[in-house]
């Protein structure tokens, strides 16, 4: 079991040193992904999902960001101990990343072929011409029509969906694709295109047996793609379980709130309103040692304010960080 973990994050703490104070963006995070598995990291904006993703690829803007402590094992190797040069060799090789906004994540003044070819030049040591030929193959693989023409296009000549396909092509071009981090890969796309991109990702992931860390706040995407789910709130992991378990029987009040705020056909039929989670995400500057959800949680007691709960094992690999896990009726 242990050696099956392709990515294993232990006790990760990431802070941002701003003028107003220290923002603890990620606190004591444990996270692991098996080979070929898809883990969805769920939570609302600013909960530390993207910071976690950037930490794994070690591209936290520093300063102001800093990885304070923790270990990130990638294929058995602690990447936080690597030098910048060694890390550079891993990026685009074992780890690749797809970003949220395909409109801004491709360089506007270079042809997309050149941008994909960069991977073949950097990691395979190919000459420009061969690298471009490989780029055409990659575009074909992500089902972009007439790839020979498209390699010569500039990003602004492609639609959002096509650009995201290009990003996926770049992620898959790596010599040893081990894990792909997809940071809200479909959020900026039209709904009709979202399904296409997700299907493509799933298909290719199965084909090359790659792990996928899918960062999203869309529970619909989670249900579609993931085998396991980790829920984050204000820098902390609050619940993790396999995907059926989370949808079937969530234990954390925040997870319940997230699921209730999701539109569904059931609700539509009964003309029900979507439920919002009352209140706002706490300011990470002012957050204490208690449970971060305490100020929005209708079940909160005094203990929630003062102490972050211990892990509770609900069986079946379902873990919750709530003082009253299992005692609450939603």
């Amino acid at each position, binding site marked *: 079991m242990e050696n099956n973990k392709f990515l294993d994050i232990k006790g990760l703490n990431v802070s941002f040193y701003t003028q107003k104070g220290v923002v603890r963006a990620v606190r004591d995070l444990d996270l692991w992904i098996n080979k070929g598995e898809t883990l969805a990291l769920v939570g609302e904006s600013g909960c530390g999902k993207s910071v976690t993703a950037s930490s794994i690829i070690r591209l936290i803007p520093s300063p102001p960001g800093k990885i304070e402590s923790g270990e990130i094992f990638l294929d058995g190797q602690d990447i936080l101990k690597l030098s910048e040069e060694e890390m550079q060799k891993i990026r685009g090789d074992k780890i690749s*990343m797809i970003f949220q906004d395909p409109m801004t994540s491709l360089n506007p003044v270079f042809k997309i072929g050149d941008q994909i070819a960069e991977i073949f030049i950097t990691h395979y040591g190919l000459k420009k011409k061969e690298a471009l030929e490989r780029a055409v193959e990659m575009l074909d693989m992500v089902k972009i029509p007439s790839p020979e023409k498209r390699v010569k296009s500039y990003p602004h000549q492609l639609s959002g969906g096509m650009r995201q396909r290009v990003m996926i092509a770049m992620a898959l071009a790596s010599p040893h694709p081990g894990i792909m981090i997809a940071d809200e890969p479909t959020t900026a796309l039209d709904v009709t295109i979202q399904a296409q991109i997700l299907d493509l990702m799933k298909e290719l992931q199965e084909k090359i047996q790659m792990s996928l860390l899918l960062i999203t706040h869309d529970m619909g995407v989670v249900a579609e793609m993931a085998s396991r789910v980790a829920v984050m709130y204000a820098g902390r992991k609050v619940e993790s379980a396999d995907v059926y378990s989370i949808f079937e029987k969530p234990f954390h009040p925040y997870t319940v709130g997230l699921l209730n705020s999701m539109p569904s056909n059931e609700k539509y039929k009964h003309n029900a309103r979507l439920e919002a989670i009352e209140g706002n995400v706490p300011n990470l500057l002012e957050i204490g040692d208690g449970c971060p959800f305490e100020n929005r949680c209708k079940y909160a007691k005094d203990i929630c304010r003062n102490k972050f709960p211990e892990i509770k094992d609900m069986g079946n690999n379902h873990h919750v960080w709530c003082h009253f896990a299992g005692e609450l009726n939603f």
Partner: protein
Amino acid sequence: MYKFILKRVGMLLPTLFGVITLVFFMLALSPGEPARVILGERANKEAVEKLNAELGLDKPMHVQYVIYLKKVVQLDFGRSIKTGQRVIDEIKSRFPATIELAIFSMILASVAGIFIGVISATKRYSLLDYVSMFGALFGVSMPVFWLGLVLIIIFSVNLNLLPTGGRMDIRYYFVPITNFYILDGLIHFFKSGDLGVFLSAVTHMILPAVTLGTIPLAIIARITRSSMLEVLKQDYIKTARAIGTPEHKVIFKYALRNALLPVITVIGLQFGMLLAGAILTETIFAWPGIGKWLYHAIESRDFPAIQGGIIVISTCFVLINLFVDLLYSVINPKIRTE
């Protein structure tokens, strides 16, 4: 692309026509009579009128304007009132000196300015950044004449390394072909195998080019730094890093090409300004360029010379900006395809 070029070139003509017209009326309406300047304060009325008739200045303004337009189109700016030489010949003999100086200043300013700007941006808030940006501020604020004199004192007078002025050592006799002395020096070298002319032209170029290039250098460095900082924040830079692109390539290829867009505009404008604005540098280094010549022309109300000089300089300015626009479209594919 061709459409864009055609459109941009088409816009040249009205611009130039505007310049030519403006130059005429500004001079025609400005105080000071050329005839008085030539003949002196105490010249009698008849003599002044006679000279005015000779110069064509007695005709009504619109007639003068039409005659002027016809001549300008044929590049005939008339004869200098002061020297009696054809204005176009005087410009031909002096303008290359200014262009040569401006080109070298801009090469220096662009290469060094972009490099300093990029380094400061990538090492933001480091000592290096503070030192370069303070240097840039100092460079912008420094009066050109003072800098020129200080350089002469240090490098010519004290260290005796470089000449104090002029374009060429008087020991060398050679017939200029292009009037760009460094180029002529190379031609001379290939013809005769003597490198002396070329070296002399280069050593004469160094101090004036540094003096003239300091302010543009500082401006370019600052613009490059801020543009670069903006670009480095963009997602596509993160993408480039995320695929393992070596950092030097991220900076000097993927980021710099984006960051250069505003820098190129500034380089073009600065270059245009150097053509007309080299008067101080030309004076200090006894550089026989057009700036100094134009200054004397203005001083002596030499209307044909002023007109010719301004038209030629403005035309160059407009052409440089056309070139910048075309270059811009090469770097920025969005402009090309729109």
